């Protein structure tokens, strides 16, 4: 099974199906993300973008189809080692509100297989906070004391703290003002490039797409409707994609109001 997969592909979804009751969310989704590239998945709300992402991580079990990470079936082998390859920025930050900021960032470094001495973990946390533009004095504050943009940055610092090979970004700019969105987009782009990581972002913010993406895939009706390099997105000729990127109410995608 694994021979025919190109070694350059970091993530490959092959005919993945997933339904919740009668609601068929993924309907034979195929997707390939090359190592070291940044893929952005776009699509309307409720089209299964999050489900696709969570399936790759094994947070959701697909009904059928195969998912490969670095050529190996996802979920095979040691689960901790598998998850240690990933970093994820959650939509709402998903920071642990009982822990101070630095312990959030260093969470993985304070327990389990990647455990380090407390002093070292704290130093790494402060360095990652600096990398996302936060001063060391936020380290001892609680997440609830920070603004939305700062929480996103802390989430980003946590996602990159253990130097993951693959980073997932779930709607990184949702709920932020346009300037803060721009800052986060630039940060994501810089970090992904300098770490050489493979990135997968889900969003419906077109500014974000143009700032972050090498490649774009549009999810609609449970399948990838269009995929290609971001530069070809505007001349795709695909009516679904055109309607989405231009935000038109009229078109093949029915807007339920």
């Amino acid at each position: 099974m694994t021979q025919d997969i190109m070694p350059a592909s970091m993530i490959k979804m092959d005919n993945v199906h997933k339904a919740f009751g009668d609601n068929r969310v993924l309907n034979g989704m195929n997707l390939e993300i090359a190592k070291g590239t940044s893929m952005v998945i776009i699509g309307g709300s409720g089209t299964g973008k999050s489900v696709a992402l969570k399936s790759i991580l094994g947070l959701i079990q697909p009904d059928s189809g195969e998912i490969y990470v670095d050529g190996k079936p996802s979920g095979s082998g040691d689960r901790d080692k598998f998850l240690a390859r990933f970093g994820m920025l959650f939509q709402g930050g998903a920071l642990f509100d009982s822990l101070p900021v630095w312990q959030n960032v260093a969470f993985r470094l304070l327990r389990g297989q990647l455990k380090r001495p407390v002093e070292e973990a704290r130093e790494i946390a402060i360095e990652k906070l600096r990398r996302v533009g936060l001063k060391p004095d936020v380290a001892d504050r609680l997440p609830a004391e920070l603004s939305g943009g700062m929480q996103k940055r802390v989430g980003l610092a946590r996602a990159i703290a253990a130097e993951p090979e693959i980073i997932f970004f779930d709607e990184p700019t949702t709920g932020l003002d346009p300037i803060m969105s721009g800052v986060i987009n630039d940060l994501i782009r810089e970090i992904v490039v300098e770490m050489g990581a493979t990135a997968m972002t889900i969003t419906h913010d077109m500014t974000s797409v143009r700032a972050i993406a090498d490649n774009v895939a549009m999810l609609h009706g449970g399948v990838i409707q269009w995929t290609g390099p971001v530069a070809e997105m505007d001349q795709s000729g695909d009516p679904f994609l055109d309607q989405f990127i231009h935000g038109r109410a009229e078109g093949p995608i029915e807007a339920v109001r």
Partner: protein
Amino acid sequence: MTPLALLARLGRMALGALAAIGRVTLFALSTFTHMFRPPYYPREVLLSLLQVGWLSLPVVGLTAVFTGGALALQIYAGGARFNAEAVVPQIVAIGMVRELGPVLVGLMIAARVTSSIAAEIATMKVTEQIDALVTLSTNPMQYLVAPRVLAALVTVPVLVGVGDIIGIAGGYTVAVYNLDFNSAAYLKNTVDFLEPLDLISSLVKGAFFGTIAATMGCYYGMQSGRGAQGVGRATKSSVEAAAVLILAANFILTGVFFSL
């Protein structure tokens, strides 16, 4: 058609109830296996011990002292109808240690601990913090659930013991200061009358009730639906389930200890 539909409905309810019992049982078993499997989270256990045990002391003490006092008044008033006022110390002791101590402490723990565990874990679920734990290679059953259940299993018997003592002290205070009992005689009657099995049953009940209370909080928290409504529903269901299960378990345990 109508009787048949009614039957079908009853059947569905019965099946639903059985499925729920199965899910809770599996959850409880999984909790216990995770308690003994590394990695361990001593800091989480300590925080839970503090939260469940130490910080519950005031409410447990107040519940017990008022109940013991009221019990003494009732037994005195009831006993007076057939010249049996003298049994106040014995009945207060038995009533507190065997039944009221464990049950009332259990219910107060359900109100205080089950609700807070359910609301906290449900909020973590709703805000994707549980998913975040998993992606950070941390098993929520080990990190969140096992420490809380372990803490309740260990501390609620202690709380019950404290409740028993404070309850008896409440009865003693009322009896000695309001009902003119002799202090030394009251204490002697209490100590002479209680048997080891009374105390053992009290503490064993505490262990069961604590486990039930924490497990229900964790279970409903982890099952929580979306949004504020999901958190509210999880919290409400957890307290209901914990209270009913504690009372049912109390009935069974009383049967096991005192009528077999």
